């Protein structure tokens, strides 16, 4: 098997009923519901190799979660072809389900009123994990995630971060080969995020697991994903190495200048957009096509100590992605 995931021209439409505001709107929608079709995915295609860790990025409502849900067999595709580990996810074959896991940062599978260990024991039976493997995996996971002392605490009494780590344990006890992570670090503090990230990295390396991760957290992406797929309004806008994202989408370049004498900042503004001034250092943003001209202009007209031309940091581009400012 050379491809863990194959997606070909995947289309997913939802039918939603719209409701006008207020009581009158509610009553009206009972008698004449207004139906609207939402085109969540407009024919996306990509493939992922076994062991790859891919980041999905895009603004809210771009179709990231819809893709993950379709890949894990929750949603029925309106059109196109989907294959995960050579299975059709929609068929929900037990052999398929035993090899995947979908983790969503927003909600949990743990039994709220019982200690987490009860959910683990239940999953052991549901996934038919042999006792020896179960004990080994559990030991490994609770050590890595540092939750050994909390196993017998009622889930409702755990903090969000602790609960999220328990969720990971519950979702990984059966050692899935393919892992879908939807916003795994949402709502966690920095240390919590860091722990989860290190864990994901380690899981990927150790088990050669294929992982797709969606996140709004820049650090998740820059630290974990080598490859990113940018989704906007149901289309794939970019699919490639994280570093290439900049070259592909940044319309500007950054010029950093260090002046040797005091200058009139107003005159510098004529050359490009001034982003930051901490004299003698000035940072400018200049259109990609004119960067050479702008640099020459600065060197000619101002007393310059040092000048460098840089790419826009990848974080800036990702920020734009999240704001939905990128188009093809």
């Amino acid at each position, binding site marked *: 098997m050379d491809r863990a995931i194959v997606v070909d021209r995947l289309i997913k439409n939802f039918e939603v009923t719209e409701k006008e505001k207020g009581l009158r709107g509610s009553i009206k929608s009972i008698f004449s519901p207004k139906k609207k079709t939402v085109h969540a995915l407009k024919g996306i295609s990509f493939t992922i190799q076994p062991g790859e860790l891919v980041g999905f990025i895009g603004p809210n409502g771009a179709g990231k979660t819809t893709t993950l849900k379709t890949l894990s*067999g929750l949603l029925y595709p309106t059109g196109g072809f989907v294959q995960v580990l050579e299975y059709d996810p929609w068929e929900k074959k037990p052999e398929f389900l035993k090899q995947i896991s979908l983790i969503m940062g927003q909600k949990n599978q743990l039994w709220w009123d019982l200690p987490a260990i009860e959910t683990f024991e239940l999953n052991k039976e549901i996934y038919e994990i042999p006792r020896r493997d179960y004990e080994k995996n559990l030991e490994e996971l609770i050590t890595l995630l540092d939750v050994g002392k909390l196993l017998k605490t009622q889930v409702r009494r755990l903090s969000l971060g602790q609960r999220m780590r328990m969720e990971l344990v519950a979702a990984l006890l059966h050692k899935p080969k393919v892992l879908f992570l939807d916003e795994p670090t949402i709502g966690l503090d920095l240390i919590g995020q860091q722990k989860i990230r290190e864990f994901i990295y380690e899981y990927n390396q150790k088990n050669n697991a294929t992982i797709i991760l969606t996140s709004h957290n820049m650090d998740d992406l820059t630290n974990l994903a080598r490859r990113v797929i940018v989704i906007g309004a149901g289309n794939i806008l970019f699919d490639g190495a994280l570093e290439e994202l900049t070259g592909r989408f940044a319309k500007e370049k950054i010029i950093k200048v260090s002046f040797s004498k005091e200058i009139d900042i107003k005159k510098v503004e004529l050359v490009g957009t001034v982003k930051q001034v901490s004299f003698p250092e000035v940072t400018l943003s200049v259109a990609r096509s004119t960067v050479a001209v702008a640099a020459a202009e600065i060197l000619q007209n101002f007393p310059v100590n040092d000048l460098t031309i840089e790419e826009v940091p990848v974080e800036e581009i990702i920020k734009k992605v999240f704001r939905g400012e990128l188009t093809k």
Partner: protein
Amino acid sequence: MRKYFQIFRVSFQQEFSYRLNFIMWRVRNVLQIILTFFLWSSVFRNPQTEVFGYNQEKILTYVFGILVIRAIVFSARAVDVAGEISNGDITNFLLKPVSYFKYWATRDIASKVLNLSFSVVEITLLFLILRPNLFLQVNPVTLFAVFVSLILAVILFFCLLFITNMSAFWMPENGWAAQFLFIVIITDFLSGGVFPLDIMPLALQKVLYSTPFPYLLFFPLQVYLGKIVGVEIIRGLVTSFVWVSILFVAVKYIWARGLRRYSAEGR
């Protein structure tokens, strides 16, 4: 099989984590039975009075019988299915190698075992306190028919409950209302939970007997009371079985359609 045993264990624990809820539910049941008991005792103050073929002994057995059969048939956790569909919790099960029906059937059985064991204790206590004249059925063939009809009733109710709950696939926000209407009002009423169905006009009874509802509570109890005998028992069991088959197919069909509609919202 072991996975369902584990589910049984966990849901038993879950029931116990809401001790107060559970106790209040039992208290409600006991109060209800005391209320009905005194109501019917005063109506049939004279033990010779007979109305619609019920004397004091049989009407009291009816009231107690309803308590027990309700505990067996109506105590079901699957009422939560609609909620799971509309808030997206059902996602957890769709992702796992586990049958959603068997999962809920297991949880139902756990709930039934728990409720039934409490019912038995309550009834024994109430019996000792109130000392009513109860009718005891001793014929083993009749008792066996009662047993079979109860099993069919449990499956029937499970299917009806699942069908009602699956409406949440199409109307996520209406799940609760539909259930309330279905379980609390229609089912309890039409299945004889409020009063014996045979005090209704004959024509209406005939119509009712072709619906699944009387087979939930009324039919098993009538068999126990010896008011339905012989061929009528067979006919009832067959009708009940036919309904089970129809509803079972319906459940499978609606489930398959519902899943296609499901959009795993809120997750």
